[in-house]
């Protein structure tokens, strides 16, 4: 009788997962925001949810990127195209429009009566095409049945409304400015303005059919301008939209709709959350188990004078570490202490690599060695020295709360430029080669009126370290799918040197592109100060020399940096040429970096001279997650007027970094990085340096190490 085996086989049916069923994630509308079909709702996505969506109906198509910035604040960046918009010169003119929405959830749904309530602002920085404000409430009134109702201004008051109540306060509220010139400036003057205030609402039913949701709504958007073009064939016959959505997987939703009594719409949403990796994050080999030293063990330090034993020992440590993707770069030792310098090639969480190293040392080192100091190198740069006591390791391993206990007993300090103690020994690991091929999808979203241009390239990245800190690296991209055509000599919308507006030219054609070819030297001046010198083809459009200094004590949440570059603009048609534009510039910035410690939010304020010779400052704010995800935004204001800057008025954009580890079941330190800039303008442009110091060392300060310290024992 194999009762247990039988019971095991039926266990999944009889054993409920020990986790309560989470409420379903709210759906997104065709604007990419949480909502019904074309109208918003007051619900919020789970904290940090990131979604990309594509929607289309009538003559409108929208590409949306939405991020739940904080539990109650979300933002949506949109790139819309509207066919047959028409203008005086071209009746078939197709409008490409960029817009940014922000929504604040004022109340969360609670109890029997309290609905969720949200205040939203649509197109707050754009050209005003989608400009609207709304106050909306949503309430789940029965199981899986949610009702939404709201009031709106701007576009959301363009049909079936009442007189704007704010008009009674001041006549100025009755007039809504609809011309935003170059765009890019906040539309505060227009908010809650206009003759009318509209009403919208709808229902959403998550049906008993698994993953299927039905929606219906009444829209208060008249779509007046979309129907005004001489060639426009979209007709809004009805305010009612109905549709169905199917959640194909937890991260992919497909929607189909009948909209405005005349047209069919679709919506495709791809969504992910930094907190919810796609694959198990702890699949792989475990650490070397820790056996405590016997109480009566011989702890003599005589071995330290035995050269042969030491050589054998260090090679054994190197071999054991190599199995975890860790290179032993150097080692120094005394009878009771050892310091190792390691290169973590593979493990995404640095505390995990440090823990693995400590476990190997606990297994390999003679019993007399009590103190392990471990220093990760980043591009040859000694970052932080983590010191653990072997006795603590032995006492903590496998125990409850081992993570907290080890954090409390670990010493963390800035690494010295060179190994400090005892007899040093450096392995002959140089030259150290590193390379990777990766298929890289790129999207040229904001290239003026050129439209939405996806491209797939094969990227090769290779580097060779000649000694600690001294390296040469190269990056080449070969287009595979989606060629960018060469725009030729075009004029930018502003009056600045064309340092960025010619970007498309640099990536046009099927030829391989030499993106970067540099020599770099990274070094430390003392425990807290880092330095970098780079020369060569620093980025696709510029080459020259670059130097940087960073002061960032490990214990401190902020740091200071300074960078100075002298560069010339590269020839877009010759990998090594500089003559095409004959443009040279000295550019550089002083920067303050601050990790606020609040929701992982990190800020960077930089002031200095930009590539086009303009002077100004950039504020970058990003939310950085423990697993490496980062979503950020930046804005730059320089001494260039909005007119000279051109469309967009000032430089701004979004940055996104996704660790590949989040989606793969094996360790890798690769990241997928994106930079969504509002326009290919020339003002406020930074040089794209690869080895900037702060991004390289920030993961090794006390705050960052603490966030991931749970991985130390993994």
């Amino acid at each position, binding site marked *: 009788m194999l009762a247990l085996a039988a019971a*095991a086989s039926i266990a999944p049916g009889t054993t409920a997962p020990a986790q309560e069923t989470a409420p379903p994630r709210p759906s997104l509308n065709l604007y990419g925001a949480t909502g019904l079909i074309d109208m918003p709702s007051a619900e919020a996505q789970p904290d940090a949810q990131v979604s990309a969506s594509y929607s289309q109906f009538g003559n409108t198509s929208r590409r949306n990127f939405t991020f739940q910035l904080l539990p109650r604040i979300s933002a949506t960046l949109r790139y819309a195209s509207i066919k047959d918009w028409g203008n005086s010169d071209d009746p078939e003119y197709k409008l490409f429009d960029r817009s940014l929405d922000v929504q604040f959830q004022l109340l969360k749904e609670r109890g029997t009566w309290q609905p969720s309530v949200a205040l939203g602002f649509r197109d707050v920085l754009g050209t005003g095409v989608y400009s609207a404000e709304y106050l909306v409430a949503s309430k789940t009134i029965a199981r899986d049945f949610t009702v939404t109702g709201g009031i709106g201004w701007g576009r959301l008051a363009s049909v079936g409304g009442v007189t704007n109540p704010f008009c009674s306060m001041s006549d100025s509220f009755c007039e809504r400015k609809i011309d935003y010139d170059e765009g890019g400036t906040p539309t505060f003057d227009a908010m809650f303005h206009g003759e009318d205030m509209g009403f919208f609402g709808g229902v959403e039913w998550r049906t008993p059919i698994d993953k299927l949701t039905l929606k219906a709504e009444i829209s208060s958007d008249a779509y007046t301008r979309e129907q005004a073009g001489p060639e426009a064939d979209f007709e809004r016959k009805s305010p009612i939209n109905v549709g169905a959505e199917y959640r194909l997987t937890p991260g992919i939703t497909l929607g189909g709709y009948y909209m405005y009594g005349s047209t069919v719409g679709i919506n495709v949403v791809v969504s992910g959350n930094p907190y919810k990796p796609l694959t198990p994050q702890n699949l792989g*080999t475990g*650490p070397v188990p820790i056996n405590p030293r016997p109480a009566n063990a011989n702890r003599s330090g005589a071995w330290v004078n035995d050269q042969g034993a030491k050589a054998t020992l260090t090679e054994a440590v190197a071999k054991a570490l190599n199995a975890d993707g860790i290179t032993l770069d150097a080692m120094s030792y005394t009878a009771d202490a050892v310091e190792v310098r390691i290169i973590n090639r593979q493990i995404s969480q640095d505390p995990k690599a440090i823990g693995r190293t400590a476990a190997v040392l606990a297994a390999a080192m003679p019993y007399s060695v009590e103190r392990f100091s471990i220093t990760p190198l980043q591009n040859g740069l000694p970052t932080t020295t983590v010191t653990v006591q072997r006795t603590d390791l032995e006492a903590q391993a*496998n125990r409850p709360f081992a993570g907290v206990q080890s954090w409390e007993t670990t010493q963390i300090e800035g690494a010295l430029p060179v190994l400090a103690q005892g007899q040093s020994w450096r392995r002959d690991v140089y030259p150290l080669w590193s390379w990777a091929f990766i298929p890289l999808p790129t999207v040229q979203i904001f290239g003026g009126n050129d439209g939405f241009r996806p491209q797939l390239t094969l990227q090769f990245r290779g580097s060779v370290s000649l000694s600690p800190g001294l390296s040469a690296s190269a990056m080449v991209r070969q287009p595979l799918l989606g060629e960018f055509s060469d725009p030729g000599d075009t004029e930018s919308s502003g009056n600045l040197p064309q340092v960025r507006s010619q970007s498309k030219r640099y990536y046009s054609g099927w030829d391989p592109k030499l993106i970067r070819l540099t020599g770099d030297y990274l070094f430390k001046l003392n425990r807290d100060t880092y330095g970098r010198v780079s020369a060569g083809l620093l980025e696709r459009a510029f080459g020259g020399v670059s130097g940087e200094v960073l002061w960032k004590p490990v214990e401190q949440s902020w740091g200071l940096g300074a960078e100075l570059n002298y560069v010339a603009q590269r020839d877009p048609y010759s990998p090594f040429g500089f003559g095409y534009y004959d443009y040279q510039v000295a550019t550089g910035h002083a920067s303050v970096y601050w990790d606020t410690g609040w929701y992982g939010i990190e800020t960077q304020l930089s002031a200095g001279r930009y590539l086009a010779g303009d002077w100004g400052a950039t504020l970058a704010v990003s939310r950085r997650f423990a697993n490496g995800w980062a979503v950020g935004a930046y804005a730059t204001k320089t001494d260039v007027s909005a007119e000279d800057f051109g469309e967009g008025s000032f430089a701004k954009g979004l940055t996104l970094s996704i660790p590949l580890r989040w*989606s793969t*079941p*094996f360790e890798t330190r690769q990241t997928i990085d994106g930079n969504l800039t509002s326009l290919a303008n020339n003002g406020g442009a930074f040089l794209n340096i690869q080895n900037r110091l702060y991004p390289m060392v920030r993961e090794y300060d006390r705050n960052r190490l603490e966030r991931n310290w749970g991985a130390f024992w993994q």
Partner: protein
Amino acid sequence: MKRLFALVSLAALTACGSGGKDPIVQAAIEEFGGFWSREDDTPKAPPRVVTRADIERADVAAIQARLESDASPTLMYGAASNGGFVTYSSALQQQIVLRGAQITGTRGMGTDLLASWSEGPDPLARRTPPGSWPHGVRRFYELPAIGPKGEVVSFDCHFEPPAPAEMTILQLRYQGVQIPEICDGPTGHFENLHFVDSSGSVWRSLQWVGPKMDLVDMQVLEPYTGD
């Protein structure tokens, strides 16, 4: 314990570099290699089945463990003993930590159980004849979270009356009882199941190790007798 994912192969094929490969990834690729690898007409030897004689020859504490998602169990040998916590490691270096027969940790199997402990006398952690098992225990599980401290979830567990049972574990037949264990907590509930002989030795046990990995089916092939 070798969990396989089609995605593994895809990711490994689409991106490659100098970083080296995880042996578990390598094993998964080999298993999924049929999609891309050329036909190999060479007959492959069937995988060698571990026998009782192998275990006795090794003379090392050993267990077999299987996640429900695994087709077959994995053999793990005792690799370390630290204050009553015995680490068992597979050939692919995935690990289970036992305190007696209580699974107190897993490494490399998917989502790690950082630690587990119990409040009150726990017949899994300390050998207890079935007649002396307590009514129940409170169990705590530490799961990966942000920061040094894991997320701790707790469950109140009670043992159901034992039922006589027989069990064959790697060619050895045991007589004993099986004891269901019902656990409820603020985040849900689960059921463990244990096969125990009259001395209180737990020879086979189905234990919950976290919400993502759910249950591990663990059989003791050669008990640890140290400490």
